[in-house]
C-alpha cells in the first residue's frame, strides 16, 4: 500500500481515538473543577459522612444518599446475581441450541429497553404490589432493587456466559473422565475456573446499578433520610443530581457536582477492580 495514504489513515484513526479520550478528560476535569472547591470548603469528611442535606441552609451532607445507593445496589446484587449466574450456566451448559438462540437475543433486548420504561413499569406494577402486599409507601429500596436486578441481568449473564464458554473444553472432559456428573463438573471445576470472569461480571453489574438514575428516580421515593427497612424510600447519589440539577445554583450546584465526583470515584474503583480481576489468570 502507498505509505502516504497509510500515514493519513493512521492520523485519522489517531485523531478519532484521541477525541474519545479527550471527552473523558474534558468531563473529568469539568466535574472536578466544578465540584472540588465545595468539598474543600466543607471538608471531605463532613461532605461524605454528613447526615443533613439542606441546600437552602447551606448544609451538604450526602451520607443518606450513599446509604441509598449502596442499599439499592446490594439489593439488586442479591436478587439479580444468582439469577444471572444460573441463567448463564443454563445457557452455556444445558440449553439446546434452539433455546439458546431464543434466549440470547431476548437478554440483549433487555439491555436495550430504555431505563425510563423500566422505571415506569416499576411505578405502576412493582410499587403498588409492594404497598399492597408488604406495606409501607411502596416507593422503596425493595422496588428499586427489583428494577435494578432486572437491569443488571444482561451484564451479569453475558459476561458470565462468555467466561464459561472461554474455558478450554479440556477442563470439562477432565472432570467427566473422573466420573463426576454434570452438576459436579459445573460446581467443582467449571465455576471455580471461571471465577475471575464471574466476579468481573458481578462488579460490572454493580457498577451499572449504582450509576442508574432514571429508573430509580421513579421507584425509590427519593427521601433524604436513613432507611430503617427495605420498605423505606431512599435517595441515591444519582437521583440527587437528577432531581435537583434543574434549579440548583451557586454552592448547591457545586455540591451536586461534588456528588458526581463521589459517584465517579466509586464507579472508577469498581471498574478498575473488575478489569484487574478479569485480567488476572
Amino acid at each position, binding site marked *: 500500500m502507498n505509505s502516504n495514504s497509510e500515514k493519513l489513515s493512521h492520523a485519522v484513526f489517531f485523531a478519532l481515538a484521541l477525541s474519545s479520550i479527550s471527552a473523558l478528560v474534558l468531563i473529568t476535569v469539568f466535574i472536578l473543577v466544578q465540584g472540588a472547591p465545595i468539598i474543600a470548603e466543607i471538608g471531605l469528611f463532613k461532605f461524605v459522612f454528613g447526615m443533613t442535606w439542606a441546600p437552602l441552609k447551606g448544609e451538604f451532607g450526602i451520607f443518606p444518599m450513599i446509604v441509598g445507593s449502596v442499599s439499592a445496589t446490594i439489593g439488586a446484587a442479591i436478587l439479580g446475581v444468582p439469577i444471572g449466574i444460573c441463567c448463564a450456566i443454563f445457557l452455556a451448559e444445558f440449553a439446546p441450541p434452539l433455546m439458546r438462540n431464543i434466549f440470547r437475543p431476548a437478554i440483549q433486548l433487555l439491555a436495550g429497553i430504555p431505563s425510563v420504561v423500566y422505571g415506569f413499569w416499576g411505578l405502576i406494577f412493582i410499587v403498588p404490589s409492594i404497598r399492597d402486599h408488604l406495606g409501607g409507601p411502596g416507593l422503596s429500596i425493595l422496588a428499586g432493587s427489583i428494577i435494578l436486578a432486572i437491569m443488571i441481568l444482561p451484564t451479569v449473564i453475558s459476561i458470565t456466559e462468555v467466561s464459561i464458554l472461554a474455558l478450554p473444553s*479440556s*477442563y470439562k472432559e*477432565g472432570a*467427566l*473422565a*473422573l*466420573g*463426576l456428573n454434570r452438576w459436579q463438573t459445573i460446581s467443582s471445576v467449571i465455576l*471455580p*475456573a471461571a471465577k475471575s470472569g464471574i466476579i468481573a461480571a458481578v462488579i460490572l453489574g454493580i457498577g451499572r446499578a449504582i450509576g442508574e438514575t432514571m429508573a430509580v428516580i421513579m421507584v425509590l421515593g427519593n427521601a433524604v433520610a436513613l432507611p430503617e427497612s427495605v420498605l423505606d424510600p431512599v435517595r441515591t447519589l444519582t437521583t440527587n443530581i437528577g432531581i435537583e440539577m434543574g434549579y440548583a445554583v451557586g454552592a448547591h450546584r457545586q455540591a451536586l457536582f461534588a456528588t458526581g465526583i463521589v459517584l465517579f470515584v466509586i464507579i472508577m474503583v469498581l471498574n478498575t477492580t473488575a478489569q484487574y480481576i478479569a485480567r488476572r489468570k
Partner: protein
Amino acid sequence: MSNDSIQTATEIKLKMNKVDLHYGAFKALSNVSMDIQRNSITAFIGPSGCGKSSLLRIFNRMNDLIPIARVDGEVFLDDLSIYDKSTDVTYLRTKIGMVFQKPNVFPTSIYDNLVIGPKKHGIKHKIDLDDIVERCLDQVALWGETKDILQKPAQSLTPGDQQRLCIARALAIEPDVILMDESCSALDPVSTAKVEELMMELQEKYTIIIVTHNMEQALRVSDYCAFMMINPERAGELVEYSLTVDMFSNPTDQRTEDYITGRFG
C-alpha cells in the same frame, strides 16, 4: 517386554465385539473387534484421523459428550456391558480413568486436583484424602518434589510434572484401566521417558491402553499393538492386532509393514 509377563496375563479385561462408530452420517469406525488383556499395555497406532482417539473414547464413553456420536456393537469391561442402558457412566469412568493429550490440570491447587475425584465419590475425611494424595503422588514419583507445595497452583508445575499429576489424578479414583491419548506428545524427551517408565510400573496393577504416533514408544512400552487405518469408505478399521514384538518384526499385513517402515524410515 519379556514373554513371561505376556503369558501370565491372559485374562481379558476389555472386550469389543463388532463395534461401529458413527458421527452423524459419517462412519468413523467399522466393525472393530478386540480383546484387551488384563495388566498389559496395548498401543493403538495408525495415521492421523484413522479413529484411534475415537476408539479409545468408546471404552469410557467419552463419546457421550458428542451428541451426534453413536456406538453400535458390544463393549465389555469384565462382565459389565458398557453401553447397556442400565450402566452407570459415572461408575464406569471411575473404573476406566483417562489421561489426555495435553496436561489438563484444573486451575486449582495440586492437592485439590487430586482430591476432587475421591471427594465426589464419597471420601470425606481429611486423613483419608491426605493418604490418597500421598499414595498417588508417590506412584507417579512426584511426592518428593511436591509434598511441600501441595497448596500451590497445579499450573505452576512444568508440563511434564502436570502430566504426571494428571496420571496421579486418574489413579486417585482407583480405576482398573487407564486410557492415555497421546499423553506424551506435548512433553520433552526427559519427561516422556519418565512417563513411559511410569506406564511400565503401573502395568503391574492396571490395564493400560495408549494412543501414540511414536513407533519407538509403542515398541518400547507396549505388549500388544493395534494398527488402524481408514478403509476405502473412509471409516477406520483395525488392520492388525498382535503382540508388539511380532507386529514390528513380522507384520502380517502389507499396509502395516508399509506404515511401520515408513514411520521408522
